[in-house]
């Protein structure tokens, strides 16, 4: 399974545009908020937690519809299914690679994004932790969604409709954690709840993705 993650990372290194696109999308959409709210730094700081989360989740969604689509097109999916790895292992490796290629780079973009949204500096580390967990949750759910919509016509449209509603709990707990950190309250309880979501998705999502994954 690690061999498959390694192959995915090597492929991502050869196509850095996809990772860059997700990070730039994240930064650009966050940059739109100050223009939209006008000269009101307090209002911006109020919006910051939700805006950060929603934008990060959308950015992480971008490369998802190619997750299995590209493999199915060039025949690699057949070969992967016959590689002796179980379908669940393939899905887990795909989810891990997706997070490493989109979720993790978004963490690096968190400080500039938080600055643009006037988020108090003490909350930045919490924001980074929240984004890391929330994008991991999305990578797991998204892998299941990508496996389900594989082969469906207009799967790229179907995928967000399927995945984003399931991501609502992550947005609620994540935004609450950042908000608590920004107002000097302990963010730990919300981070733990977010962690619990990830812990539940960790075995269940690859299981679902593996069951949905089939050759056509």
């Amino acid at each position, binding site marked *: 399974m690690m*061999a*498959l993650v*390694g*192959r995915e990372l*090597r*492929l991502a290194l*050869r*196509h850095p545009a996809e990772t860059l696109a997700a990070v730039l999308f994240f930064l650009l959409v966050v940059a739109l908020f100050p223009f939209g709210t006008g000269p009101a730094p307090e209002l911006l700081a109020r919006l910051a937690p939700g805006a950060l989360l929603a934008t990060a989740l959308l950015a992480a969604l971008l490369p998802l519809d190619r997750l299995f689509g590209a493999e199915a*097109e*060039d*025949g*690699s999916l*057949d*070969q992967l*299914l*016959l*590689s*002796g*790895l*179980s379908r669940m292992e393939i899905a887990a490796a795909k989810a891990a690679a997706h997070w490493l290629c989109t979720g993790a780079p978004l963490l690096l973009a968190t400080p500039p994004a938080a600055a643009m949204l006037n988020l108090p500096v003490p909350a930045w580390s919490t924001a980074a932790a929240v984004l890391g967990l929330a994008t991991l949750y999305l990578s797991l759910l998204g892998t299941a969604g990508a496996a389900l919509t594989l082969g469906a016509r207009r799967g790229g449209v179907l995928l967000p409709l399927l995945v984003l509603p399931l991501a609502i709990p992550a947005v609620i707990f994540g935004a609450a954690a950042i908000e608590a950190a920004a107002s000097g309250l302990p963010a730990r309880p919300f981070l733990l709840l977010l962690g619990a979501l990830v812990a539940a998705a960790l075995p269940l999502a690859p299981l679902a993705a593996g069951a949905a994954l089939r*050759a056509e």
Partner: protein
Amino acid sequence: MAVRRGGRVVFAGLSLTLRPGEALVLTGANGAGKSSLLRLLAGLLPAAAGELLWEGAPALADAPAHAARLRYLGHADAVKPALTLAENLAFWSRRWGGDIGAALAAADLAPLADLPARLLSAGQRRRLALARLALAPAPLWLLDEPTVGLDAASIGRLGGLLAAHRGAGGMVVVATHVALPLPEARGLDLGAAAPPESEDWPA
């Protein structure tokens, strides 16, 4: 065994057995079900009727184990253009073992090992897909038109690979439209297994 694709029965009432060292050449018109039969044997496609046995036991009871004893070469070459030839084989070499250099040499691609695969011609991509077969031995090879795009010398090399594979007790099922260097191969015409148009097939 029978296969149904998109509600249409492609073939039915088919039964075949392969012994070690045997080769089976599938022939038939386009759409006769050659590729479907190969995918069924690989476990990629469910059988509408019948079962797939390996040494008398259901082959797909343990799907990863069945996958591990076969090599499948489909229509698509499953070559990643961004990776070099050696990197394309690296994942499979880690899964199955086997030396990448030797496999590339078997397909006469050794001098190109560090080139990105996007620079390859169609025939060279096919040879890279064939090099995967040479990585590590597996008892069953399922080849779907392996000669597409190959030149005469490459077909000769494929003949050598096939002979070595069968010499070691390996089995081959190959779908092809052109004559292959496969001595003493059995033939199977899938056109004969097509159901009559009027036959009512239970859903």
